[in-house]
């Protein structure tokens, strides 16, 4: 098999496993803290929001102190987790969207578990020299669809969280906004689908060539 393909497959696998392990170790403390908070019997709503200063970007509306020299510093917060105690009841449309998002979150969880299996099956086929194969092309298409799905769900989650925040909270110096800029996943998904189509055409050409006597 092509040595470069094998090398790239190994590098990609190492990076992927490292990212997964690093994320797990980083998030264990957060998971534990969140779980302990959740056990407390106080009605609360946790909001994940993106913020923009009311007076525009780079206006640094928030102050804090540098404990190194006790100097006042200005800062600007771009994203925050806000915990609202005893929140008022959300309107029905927002509640319905929220539960729809929870349902879609399970779909994301399944896709997140499925994605590495697809990925490693492709690597295994590549290591056996079967890159241009119908099964591999279908798996690449599935990866592309999953990545686009991740972006769409991300945006929907931001929208619902922002709607909840707008309803429950008003901040003195900041407005909430929906961040659409996570285009990396969307672009990667579309490029993956494009690659799958190119490989489909390549497969047809190969089959025709194989049947050229």
């Amino acid at each position: 098999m092509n040595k470069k393909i094998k090398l790239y497959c190994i590098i990609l696998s190492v990076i992927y496993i490292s990212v997964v392990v690093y994320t797990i170790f980083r998030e264990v403390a957060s998971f534990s803290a969140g779980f302990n908070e959740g056990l407390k019997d106080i009605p609360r709503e946790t909001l994940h929001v993106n913020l923009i200063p009311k007076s525009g970007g780079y206006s640094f509306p928030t102050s804090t102190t540098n404990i190194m020299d006790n100097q006042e510093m200005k800062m600007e917060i771009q994203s925050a987790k806000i915990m609202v105690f005893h929140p008022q009841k959300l309107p029905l449309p927002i509640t319905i969207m929220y539960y729809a998002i929870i349902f879609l979150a399970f779909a994301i969880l399944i896709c997140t578990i499925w994605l590495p299996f697809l990925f490693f099956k492709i690597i295994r086929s590549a290591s056996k020299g079967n890159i241009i194969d119908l099964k591999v092309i279908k798996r690449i298409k599935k990866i592309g669809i999953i990545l686009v799905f991740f972006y769409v769900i991300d945006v929907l989650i931001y929208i619902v969280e922002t709607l909840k925040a707008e309803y429950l909270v008003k901040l003195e110096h900041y407005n909430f906004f929906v961040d659409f800029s996570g285009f990396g996943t969307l672009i990667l998904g579309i490029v993956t689908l494009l690659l799958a189509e190119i490989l489909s055409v390549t497969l047809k050409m190969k089959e025709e060539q194989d049947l050229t006597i």
Partner: protein
Amino acid sequence: MPIIVNLDVMMAKRKISLNELSEKIDITPANLSILKTGKAKAIRFSTLDAICKELGCQPGDILEFTEE
């Protein structure tokens, strides 16, 4: 496909088997069989040349066009 391959007809006329023809024109029996059964997508001129030389015929004796 509107192009019909009449290789089996010519082979029967010349009384030559698939294996003999494939040996003489240096094509595998599997590939020649693909051609004979009409499953081929394309034929090279070099292959057509070799078949016509061996069977002593014209390309039109091997290939026939029909309306679908």
